[in-house]
Each structure stands twice: as structure tokens, then as C-alpha cells.
């Protein structure tokens, strides 16, 4: 898959995994497993980039006697997911055109 496309996809995946409720690193990886095999070293720069872009915020909370970082989606992060949906609707239209059985002529 094209690297730029992949990056946008992975960003959206991570945002989607924290859309319903805040989550933490290992849980995000587990949640995405059915869709994307993501390693720690892949997830980390994504989380940092999303934090810098203010699409998520990080808060530490106590868990079993240690502190764990939880990632919370921001309003801008939710907006990004909406943008992603719109982008992909466009992409879907293009996909339909590409795989059409009956040649490339417009109707």
C-alpha cells in the first residue's frame, strides 16, 4: 500500500480506537489487531504526531500502583475522523470507476 495513504489510514485507525472512550497504548494495539498489525514502534510516532496536532491529549492515571498514559480524543480529533470519512467517500467513487467491468466511459 502507498506509504502516504497508509499513514493517513493508521492515524485514523488510532483516532477511531479512542473515539468511544480513552484508551492506552497496549489496548489500542489489541483493538486494531483484526484490521492492522501495528507494532509498538509504529504506534508511538503516530501517538506523538496526533498529540502535537492536538487531535488527542495524554493524561496519566493510576492503575494498579503505577501510572499509565491514557489517550483522549479531542474535538479536533473527531473532526479529523469526519474529514477522513468524506475523503474516503470520494476515494470510493474513484474505486468504483477503476474496477468497473464495462470500460471507462462516462455515462
Amino acid at each position: 500500500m502507498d506509504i502516504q495513504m497508509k499513514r493517513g489510514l493508521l492515524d485514523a485507525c488510532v483516532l477511531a480506537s479512542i473515539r468511544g472512550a480513552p484508551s492506552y497504548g497496549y489496548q489500542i494495539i489489541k483493538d486494531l489487531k483484526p484490521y492492522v498489525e501495528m507494532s509498538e514502534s509504529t504506534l508511538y510516532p503516530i501517538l506523538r504526531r496526533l498529540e502535537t496536532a492536538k487531535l488527542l491529549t495524554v493524561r496519566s492515571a493510576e492503575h494498579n500502583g503505577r501510572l499509565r498514559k491514557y489517550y483522549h480524543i479531542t474535538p479536533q480529533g473527531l473532526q479529523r475522523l469526519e474529514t477522513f470519512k468524506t475523503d474516503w467517500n470520494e476515494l470510493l467513487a474513484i474505486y468504483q470507476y477503476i474496477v468497473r467491468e464495462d470500460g471507462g466511459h462516462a455515462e
Partner: protein
Amino acid sequence: MLNKEQFLAALRARITGLPKDDLERTLQYYREMIDDRIEDGMTEFEAVADVGDPAELAEAILQKPVKQTAVGVAKPPKAPKERKPMSGGAKVALIIVAALLIIAGVGVILASLNFGGRNAMEKEYTFANAGIRSFVLETGAAEVKLLPAKDGICTVRCIESATLKYKVWQNGDTLHVVRERSGAWSFFGASLKEDYVCVYLPEQAYDSLWVKSSSGGVSVPEDFRFTTAVITVSSGGVGFSADVTEQLAIEASSGGVAVMNASPNELQVRASSGGVALSDMRPGSVALHLSSGGLRLSGVHCTGDLGAESSSGSIRFSDVIARGKMKLECTSGSIKLEDCDADELYIECTSGSVSGNLLTPKTYVARATSGSVRVPSGSSGGLCEVKTTSGSIHFE
């Protein structure tokens, strides 16, 4: 097979080029990843292996975010990363990194020291009109401060965090505030920046105060009066200005002790390496033991005996009077008495000098083994016996 700390050390060694914030954040991220896997049921070795190989992770970390490592879509094996041949510069960097590993080890400990500071919050416990008369306060690094309560309610305010909590409860007429140890972080003695236990007291007169603190200091202002007060600190200092009627006992290991105003029937101070300063007190009997700190008394008038012994610190008294015996012993420090007096004095110094002036005439018996002796002649007044081995004796 690496364990968690070995993995983190190996990873740290490979990414020392990063800015400190990024470095610590990255290590914390991977530490958390390992801990979460362990919590999920993996052993420590399994968790570390599952997170990855420190060398490969370091390459991924040090690459710019633009270059993503290959990600398989729902494919179990991780896509292999290309190994770049190490440049000469990288080889030199590795040699430096090896030398920095010791500093890195310290860095891990320092990072964990600061870690407890996150999410610290002030907690408030109130005991309204609950008939509290005595206190048992036990802290670690937190400073213990007693303060007058302006609202007439007994309140405890302390800083708590994920790694530091207190149990605060009332038993009968005694208020207890005791620090709870939590988790492995207490091994490092994690100390928070704002670390205190403040006890606000609505009244002035109370029964007993019992305080034990490790490295936090203890501060008791003059607004209060206790029947007894026992204070034990390890490396924190003690500032005590309240009044005490029966017994005041203070023990400090390396912190200094400063006491004013209190006039207990019995005063005991024991200090190991910190100094002790007592001023403007009217106690009954006084017993002071010092190891290497100096002893300074000023304006202390005892109605009973005063005994002070010091190992290597010096003793300086100014306007110190005992209606009883004054017994001073110093091993390697000197003794100086200025405008002091007692019914009888016994002063012994091993290698220091003894000098000063007493307010009333005394019968001096002075013996210096190798130093000079100069004392007033005459034989009226109480006995003043002075002995020193290698110092001199000089009384006006």
C-alpha cells in the same frame, strides 16, 4: 533473553542522542507496554520479547516519523526492517554510548524519583469539633507543619499522589496521620516537589504531640502549648517554638534542631550530625547529647540540672543558668561559657579548650594536662571543676 530493566537499559543506550524529554517519554512508553503485557498474563521475558528487539526499535525510533516501517495488513509476522550498515560516525557514537551507560543508570533512577510527582494533589481531611487533644504524625519526606486554624476546625492538608497516600483517622481524642508506603517507587524514596503535611489546629492547648519524619522537617510554631512533645526526624530539620509543660524530647539524625520558648519540666535533645540551637527557654532539667554537630544555647535558664555532652562539636553557652548542676562534656570540640552560672559546674574536655565567665564567684578546681590554666582565685561560691587533656582553661 532480556528482562524489563535490561531491555530498557539496552534501548536507552541506543537512543541517548534524543532530547531528554523525548528519551524519557519514549522509555516510559515502552516500559508501559511491557507492564501491560505482564498484566495481560505474559511473563516478564515473554512481554519483553513481544515488544521487540531494542536494536530494531531504536532504529525505528531514531528514524524521522515520515519513514514508516512496513506494516502488514492482518498478517501475523512483523515485516522485517532493513538493516543499514553502521557508518563510522555511528561506531564512534556507540563507544561514547557505552561510556554513558553509567550515567544512564543514574538517569533511570532520577527519572523515577521525579515520576511520583505527577498527578500530585492536595487532599484535605477535616475533623470538626471532634475533641482532638493529641496527635500522632508520621511522614517520610513530607514536612510536618502545625499551624493555627482560623476557621475553628481541625484540618489536615497533605499532598498525595499515585505513590504517596496518608491514612488519617481519629481514635478517641488522638488524631493520626500516617504515611502509607505504596509500590516499588517508595524504594527510591520518591520525593515530591511540594511535599507537606499541614495540620491546622483550632485551639492552643493540647495534650501530646508525637511526630516521626524521615527527611521532611518538622515545624511547630509558638501558637500552641503541649503537655508532652516527642519529635523524631532522620534528615529533616526541627523548628520548635511552641510551649511544652511536661516533657519535650527531640531526636534528629542529621537534621538541625532549633527550639525556642518551650519551658518543659524535662528537656531532652539528641542529635547525631546536625547542630542544636536552644534559645529563650525556662526548662526544668535539661539533657543534651550531640555527636558531631555544634551546640548553642542562649538565654536558657533551668530550674534544675543541665547536662550536655558533645562528641566532636563545640559547645557555646550564652546567658545559660542552671539552678542545680551543670555538667558539660566535650570530646574534641571546645566549650565556651559567656555570662553563665550554675550552683555547681563540672566541665570536661578531651582535646578542646574551655573558656568563659561565670556570673557568681566559684571555687575553681582546674586541671589541664598540656594546656595553660587561668582562673579566678578565691574559694567562695559553688564548685566549678574543669578538666581538659590537650586544651587550655581560661575563666575570667
